[in-house]
């Protein structure tokens, strides 16, 4: 299993729009990806509801794969 930790860039955290971009990318990759916040449960990264229900804030750290790192570190609220 490959694991990466990344700090969330979007100013308002991982809300609907950035979460959508992220889950779309996961679904497009065709691989099974799990995400979790520090200390939180691991959830299916292809589920937009599971992702937003984690209530991930700006600056929170989470584990994901390389190719998705850039998406998460970009501020989509600019």
């Amino acid at each position: 299993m490959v694991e990466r930790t990344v700090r969330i860039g979007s100013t308002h955290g991982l809300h609907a729009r950035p979460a959508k971009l992220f889950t779309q990318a996961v679904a497009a990759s065709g691989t099974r990806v799990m995400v979790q916040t520090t200390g939180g449960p691991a959830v299916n990264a292809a589920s937009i509801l599971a992702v937003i229900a984690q209530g991930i804030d700006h600056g929170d750290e989470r584990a994901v794969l390389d190719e998705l790192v850039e998406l998460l570190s970009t501020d989509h609220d600019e």
Partner: protein
Amino acid sequence: MMEITGTGIGQGVAVGPVVRMAERLPEPVDRPSHLDPEREGERARGSLSVVAAELANRGAKAGGAAKDVLEAQAMMAEDPSIIDEVTKLLATGKTAERAVYEAFAAYRDLLVGMGGYMGERAADLDDISQRVIAHLLKLPAPGVPNPGHPFVLVARDLAPADTAMLDLDQVLGLVTVGGGPTSHTAILAREKAIVAVVGAADATALADGDTVVVDAAAGLVVSTPTPEQLADANARIAERAALQAAPVTPGALADGTPVPLLVNLGSAEGAVEALRLGAEGVGLFRTEFLFLDHNTAPSVRDQQEHYTKLLRAFAGKKVVVRVLDAGADKPLSFLNAAHEENPALGLRGIRALRHSEVILREQLTALAAADAATDAEVWVMAPMVATVEEARYFSALAKELGMRVAGVMVETPSAALIADRVLAACDFASIGTNDLTQYTMAADRLLGTVANLQDPWHPAVLRLVGDVGAAGAELGKPVGICGEAAADPLLAVVLVGLGATSLSMSPSALADVRASLARYSPDDAKALARAALAAEGAAEAKRAAEAAASEITASRATAS
């Protein structure tokens, strides 16, 4: 022919076929399914994917911000977590309808529990859930219809999410069963200049395809109108189109006496449209939006940037900025966190700002800097002033921080009753008719049950306006009106008759008010004001002014 009464918003008329907004579906009954879980699963997955495709398709058509929201909704409809949950629920023998309902409800409650931004997304989930259940039941999807031709929308009431989805190019008119003059539908109608009648209880009797005349000026919806009524409505629509297309001229009475027509703005965004419609300046610039959604006050630099943007758009014109008006219906935690029994009578407006003077100082500093950097004529005013001492305090502070013109809003009866002394302590007054009516009539403007008392035509309110107008004339100081009252074409003439020197309104009302003012001389306006002042109540005052107005028009027709 059937006539349905309600509260008209604006002065427009519309004719068109009714399309009803489908009612919300009831919660699916939790009963055992007579199908096996696999078959129910196929039904559920089928409907989820149809709804997802529909939402994605609508998103692609909508574009912009709506596209993102709809695409996110489409993904939620086909979310693997939802499908897992539905499958689990179906295994216990539930119907597809019930399983879909419960799966979305569980996530909905989760989001509501998170509060804030996520909490607001709960409505998106409700919407998807309703769509999927409707598809399963082969019922029309609830929510805003899209029949593909222009229509009159008839709804119980519109939620903000519905209005965002409304294709305004297709909506000829709006009729709601519920809602009052301050409802979300009414606000939208005013902003976008859509012909609307709200609070039309009997509109439930209207059916899809009925031809109706929506007459906002009369607060009337006529179903299956007679040929004469149709012809009359179409003539009025043409007349109004001509009015809207008339050249934009400065506001003036029949003899040329200028009455500057200004606009109420809540952010710098509306500036271009307001100028196009002939705004001669801004009579009320609300600054709350800079502060709402914030846990702390925005920095002086952020504020200055936004003010500069607005002032640039109105170079060479007057812009009256109201300092932060928090409290009552728009509380701000950093300004006043205390729970109040009567927030409308509590620590709000200038009272709250005085309590946190640093916020007021920062705002005035930012404004003065924006003023210095631009060519607009900036005036600043304080909300909720009740005493001469408050007027003096605000004026002194504004001048100390570099503002040239400082005035007060007259919203309390006390400020109106001693307007001569209040005006002596500052440079101008601007009457906020909504609050002045609420406080004069002792009727909460947010409370539907006393909405009938919230009428600025009431002679008690008009008399206070007249007192302020007289004090302004005596001292040679301007008295403006900013409030919905100025947007009523006939009431606008009465207000000028009572001494108002400028009128500020939603940009969509400018053309109607401009045309109305041009029909009357200063003496006519005073005669209308006298007629309204002498009446018993609000409805009588309006009728008296209408009678006086038709007398003036008739005598002029005979003379010419």
